[in-house]
């Protein structure tokens, strides 16, 4: 049993025949070999698998690839500019030491990027609340909060 899916990933049209039960995260990682999207849990809590789906942060391990039919997906591999210059949020995470082991980082960064459209000059408390869908076990979030604050400011 399989189903045909097509979508745009990081600006490129992709299409594949996959088992119906293929998760979006698995499609990205295994079919497209975009392994920057990480899977950290099986209940939709940790957010390591967060990608942008039509600009919205979603958990790619908690939806079927088929549900992304026709959508525009941005993964961490698609965030930096084509010439390799990092996105302001990536720069801010580096400058603020907002990552340690790096495993939650792609999801955290993409989740933070989505915030730009939602919060203007957010307070620390607002940022902390807005990161409720992303776990980090390394940083205690302290520097992530600083990174998001800086990154949002620099995104303008």
């Amino acid at each position, binding site marked *: 049993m399989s189903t045909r899916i097509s979508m745009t990933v990081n600006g490129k049209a992709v299409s594949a025949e996959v088992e119906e039960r293929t998760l979006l995260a698995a499609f990205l990682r295994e079919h497209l070999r975009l392994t920057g999207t990480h899977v950290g849990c099986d209940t939709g809590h940790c957010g390591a698998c967060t990608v942008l789906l039509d600009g919205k942060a979603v958990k790619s391990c908690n939806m079927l690839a088929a549900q992304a039919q026709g959508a525009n997906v941005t993964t961490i591999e698609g965030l930096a500019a084509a010439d390799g210059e990092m996105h302001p949020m990536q720069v801010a995470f580096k400058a603020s030491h907002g990552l340690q*082991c790096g495993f939650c980082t792609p999801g955290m960064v993409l989740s933070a990027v989505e915030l730009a459209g939602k919060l203007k000059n957010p307070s620390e408390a607002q940022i902390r609340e807005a990161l409720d869908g992303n776990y980090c076990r390394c940083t205690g979030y302290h520097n992530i909060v600083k990174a998001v604050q800086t990154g949002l400011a620099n995104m303008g």
Partner: protein
Amino acid sequence: MSATGIGARVERKEDRRFLTGAGQYTDDVLLPGQTYAYFLRSPHAHAKIKTINSAAAKAAPGVLAVFTGEDIAGKVNGLPCGWLITDVNGQPMKEPPHPVLAQGKVRHVGDQVALVVAETYFQARDAAELIEVDYEVLPAVVKASDADKPGQPAVHDIAPDNVSYVWALGDKAGTDAAFAKAAHVTRLDFHNNRLIPNAIEPRAANASYNRADESYTLYVANQNPHVERLLMTAFVLGLPEHKVRVIAPDVGGGFGSKIFLYAEDAALTWASRQLCRPIKWTADRTEAFLTDAHGRDHTTTAELALDQDGHFLAMRVKTRANLGAYLSTFASSVPTILYATLLAGQYKTPFIHCEVTSVFTNTAPVDAYRGAGRPEATYVVERLVSTAARELGIDQAEIRRRNFVTQFPYQTPVALMYDTGDYNAIMNKALQMADVAGYAQRKTATQAKGLLRGIGYSSYIEACGLAPSNIAGALGARAGLFEAGEIRVHPTGSVTVFTGSHSHGQGHETSFAQVVSDRLGIPIENVDVVHGDTGRVPFGMGTYGSRSLSVGGSAIIKALDKIIAKGKKIAAHLLEASDADIVFKNGAFSIEGTDKNVPFGGVAFAAYVPHNYPLDKLEPGLNENAFYDPTNFTFPAGTYICEIEIDPQTGQTRIDRFTAVDDFGNIVNPMLVEGQVHGGLAQGIGQALLEECRYDPESGQLLSASYSDYAMPRADDLPSFQIGTTCTPCTHNPLGVKGCGEAGAIGSPPAVINAIVDALAAYGVRDVPMPATPQRVWQAIQNAKA
């Protein structure tokens, strides 16, 4: 200090790959001919396996093999324990077999029963459902407190009372005598809650076999690949070590849980040869909850004897530690060597006695988790001290000051020799940073909101930098605890550093490069750090116990010293001077007192293009190895002050302020050190307020088996932290560093609980168990009112 040298806040070299999705974690590795594994696990806490029928699974689509305990019996040995504890009667601990696949019996929910290998993950998992296992379910022993009661089922035949060992440390007679003359005794009973490590990257492994040279390669999410290889080849698989390469690539957090040799790693390695195909396994989160080695789970009665002025006379501690169903790699050392030795804390308590009973239960194995024994010890000491201060009406800072060790070196009554420290300096800075002077005003403001405010202190010590190998050996370690490093200078003067330490978030690629760039006077861009690969790094003991910079860094320093010494000889030749007149400074070798010099790169080039070179006296090349075995532990210490607000109607606790002042000795990269402290604090606060591994006491089913039921700290559970440091450099390693990886997790739980108890003091509450959930805080208030 240069912009990238020792002491500088250098942005991390490794960040770009992590931020752009270019990291390579074990599950990202895809090998030609890749197959996938699924482990069928026990649904029961304790059961006999009567029969296993895997015929249907073997016939399922895509299935390449199904292996059960029967298939590996006599071919694959059990997993070893790396630390032998000798009990109070001089007998070795009971060390039952720890099979890679269950041999006739399962002993905890999640125990591995069969390995299914298939062309795809789904095929393996679907096939596993076709395996019929006929279990005879046995009664389970779940709670450590029940384990040695008469009539309890035995987890292992060789330990009918479920006791692995009873072990003790300290002067019992002296302690009892001191208690007999004490003016005051403070006693507390508590449980140090069991935790599940929860690195966000689940464990994973990818094993392959090369028929051409009969060698194996194992990619594995692990903190110490050489130790993994040594244990697996020598004890479990009986393979020649040089035929096995273990690679721990990017690893997504460890916190202790990836130190250990796990059954899956060995099973996959063995099976890869049977199939001559690479086999990949990645735990899902449910498996991580069920099978990663858990942490803590101590039940303790502790007493502190004091004179009328609040001076500590003696401490008496009785602890029961839950080992789980099997002895995991370092399980036996955690509630003993890494625990009781820390009970002196920062204090000159003259007599201490600790007795530990470690028992088997039908639960997942328990082993080192961030802090490993030291958080448990600190919790005992700092809860006792705070409670005693309250009972005697002595200020919390004052009672600590009255008892601080102030003369160094200091020999504790529990086997450690503190080399240096200044605990008053730490306390002074903490009091000031925490604005303790303004506390009364903040409390008034809190009360005006109808809330309660409390303040809690914790002055911890830890022993890091494991460890002088001979001392560890005398205490039962079955491995050395040195570290290895290699400095390879390339002909054009750039450097590759090979270290046996392993970075899984710590940032060694940056901090170690800072050390090397600083010492050699070369740009940090010219230094790369390689770790985590037994095929590239000469040897290594890995990263745990906050040892990387103090032990691994020292090995690098030793290798650098050799490089510089050789460089001086080369430079002396090039400059036509005597070796003794050459000095190395700012990246150049020069004749002392002159401006005649040759840069480091020039020396490197000469070493590899030895046209003008003292070949009669000196080998060409510039490549040095070093092994460093520490002469003592290091002793980071700190004082943490926590302020919380409690809503008495709901029991909800909110951390309002958290101040941590630590003495880590010298610091290479303050930004990385702060990050380590932040992360440790989050885990310690998680233990204090949120996290608890819970099993059903009858069935042994894991109740907190997913993030729906195990509360992980999220960003909005935590405050921003105020971090400060003081510095007394370590006296016995070349960098004067002590280690910072575990401090936050060690010092913070008692600070939080002491603050909660302080807030509830008006109700007469004396203790709130961890985690102090809203329900528990509310219940404590109700009980006090009743």
